[in-house]
């Protein structure tokens, strides 16, 4: 018995040694990507299982292997809880030797995982969270913020609306850090363009009935009612604004963070005319259409900007691993910083030293039912917001890493 055990140990160590030889530049002999996302909660539809599908597609399209070794994919549900997310991330990095984490919708989750992973020299590419803190005061050496942030969203939407004559604004704000920061960023832009903020009401997070707030917004006489909230709050507010006929009586609704899935949930009849900023719309050009249709076949729904971003992020990460010839985080991060990112999702994107992937954003408008020709023909791209205008310039970044 003892002898067999000894033989087994010997054999295992020989095997381990030889495999280490075969891929000396890959830690543990493979590249492992972890999708940490919300598989059961409020953000399931916008990232969730669709993000896992997108990551799987990216790996398959890359050929399933890099530097001669298989690319592995794992995923888990962070349940929108930073503590759950942190313990999964810790286990993945320490025991399962995950090389890169992607996903992490929800800013609290994103910040917790980015901090933890960076301390363990592991790259994170955040596709789901919005907080600018990821690349500003809590920026980190290995953390990348890929799809959108709370600065880029209002810039495009507010600028376009003010220029089109929407001068006076009323805010319905989700009463927590995310909502406040969206409102403050938006008001600053509105005021800088000569618009005014005539009122603001803070609704508790998870309000089911917005009618009272909408009524105040309506009677304020503002040109624009801005929704500085997200997810279910936005959906409820838009739906109820429609039922009170606020838009049909001439006031404009502007969503500060709206996903394709929200528009789908609302239906065109209710959401028509709503303007917002997005990083991606499937029907924008030929390349985005082709990829999105492939995604649709596997997922049964068109991709949100977050899901498209996951594919793009994983692909560019693998390209960087290939170019660097190793999965060592420092080398890969340096390579990512040197690359110009180009695919169906991003055009001439760059990952800055603070981790921000600055790229063009798009101002879109929800179509009316008459304009739509098909189940997913939901948005019209109104204009492109250049990366330089959308994101905080690196010269003005408050990221402590930049101040050596």
């Amino acid at each position, binding site marked *: 018995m003892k002898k067999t055990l000894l033989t087994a140990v010997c054999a295992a160590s020989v095997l381990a040694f030889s495999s280490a030889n075969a891929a000396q530049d890959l830690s543990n002999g493979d590249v492992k990507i972890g999708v940490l996302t919300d598989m059961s909660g409020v953000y399931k539809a916008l990232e969730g299982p669709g993000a896992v599908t997108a990551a799987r597609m990216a790996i398959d399209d890359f050929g399933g292997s890099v530097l001669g070794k298989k690319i592995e994919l794992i995923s888990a549900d962070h349940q929108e809880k930073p503590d759950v997310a942190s313990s999964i991330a810790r286990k993945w990095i320490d025991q399962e030797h995950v090389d890169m984490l992607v996903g992490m919708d929800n800013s609290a989750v994103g910040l917790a995982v980015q901090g933890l992973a960076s301390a363990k020299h592991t790259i994170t590419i955040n596709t789901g969270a919005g907080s600018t803190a990821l690349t500003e005061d809590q920026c980190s050496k290995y953390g990348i913020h890929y799809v959108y942030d709370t600065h880029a969203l209002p810039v495009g939407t507010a600028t376009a609306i003010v220029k089109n004559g929407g001068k006076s604004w009323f805010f319905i704000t989700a009463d927590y850090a995310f909502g406040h920061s969206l409102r403050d960023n938006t008001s600053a832009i509105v005021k800088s363009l000569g618009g005014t903020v005539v009122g603001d009401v803070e609704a508790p997070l998870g309000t*089911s*009935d917005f009618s009272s*707030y909408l*009524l105040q917004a309506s009677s304020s006489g503002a040109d624009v009612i801005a929704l500085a909230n997200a997810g*279910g709050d936005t*959906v*409820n507010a838009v739906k109820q604004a429609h039922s009170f*006929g606020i838009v049909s009586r001439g006031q404009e609704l502007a969503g500060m963070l709206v996903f394709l899935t929200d528009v789908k949930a609302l*239906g065109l009849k*209710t959401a028509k005319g709503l303007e917002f900023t997005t990083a991606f719309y499937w029907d924008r050009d030929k390349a985005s259409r082709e990829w999105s249709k492939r995604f649709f076949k596997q997922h049964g729904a068109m991709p949100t900007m977050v899901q498209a971003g996951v594919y793009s992020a994983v692909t560019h990460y693998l390209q960087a691993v290939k170019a660097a010839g190793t999965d060592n985080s420092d080398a890969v991060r340096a390579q990512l910083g040197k690359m110009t990112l180009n695919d169906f999702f991003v055009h001439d994107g760059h990952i800055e030293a603070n981790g921000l992937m600055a790229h063009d954003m798009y101002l879109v408008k929800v179509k009316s039912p008459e304009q739509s020709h098909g189940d997913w023909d939901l948005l019209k791209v109104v204009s492109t917001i250049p990366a330089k205008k959308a994101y905080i310039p690196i010269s003005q970044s408050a990221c402590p890493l930049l101040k050596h």
Partner: protein
Amino acid sequence: MHLNVILAQTMLGLSAGVFYAMLSLGLAIIFGLLNVINFAHGALYMLGAFVALIGYSYIGPWLGYDDFHLGFWWALIVAPVVVGCFGMLIERFMLRRLYQFDHIYGLLLTFGIALILQGLMSRYFNVSGTAYGGQPDSLSGIVNLGFMYFPTYRLFAIVVSIIVCVVTWFVIERTSLGAVLRAGVENPRLVEAFGINVPRLITLTFGFGVGLAALAGVLAAPIYSVSPLMGANLIITVFAVVVIGGMGSIGGAIVTGLALGLVQGLTQALYPPASETVIFFIMVIVLLIRPAGLFGKDTAS
């Protein structure tokens, strides 16, 4: 504040209040007649909304008839019946075993049922909500009330809910059927001696209370998004309403539900950050001054 604004907020408060009233009425019936604190009430309200949603959008394709939609008017009848039957099964096979024990066991059982129902629905449906498309066109307009524009559907929901509440109150407090029900709780043996099947009566009562929750769910579906957590968010407020009104008082539940909806509506206009807490603040004050609730009879002494 302008009179029109106060009137408008009153209407909005009323439209929230009728849901509080319908739900707390069901809770009060179940508590008053069965002595069970039904924590699953919110989940059953959610289930009612889902029966309407599934009936309208999903059941046709599931059965292979893509064009089949269970309309809103049918849902108003079907959902309470389906969910009510489900409630009767819970009463017959689970709750009934717990009557001999302390209240807390019934509460724990129903709380567990609520968690299971919410978890199951979250597995299959979008937690941030799905739009209910079955609202009839005849109710989709907007009425100009003079002081505000008000959705026709909300007006309809207010009227229907108030009628249901008043009829329920009348049946339980003013008819012989209600008298039998109340007597069955006071002294089951005596009532059985009159040839009345008390256990069946209790099962039906529970089913009725649950049906009311489901009806409220169907009425809520076109206003709010249908979501697995819609009941969980509401039930805490509704329990506060029941406590303020007095546990088990039928009329108290209705009046308190409507009144607190109004209070909340006005708070949303005057000081929005307090709108979620104002009801609990009132609850604390009421419990300090009248521990049995505004309409409750003090049974502790």
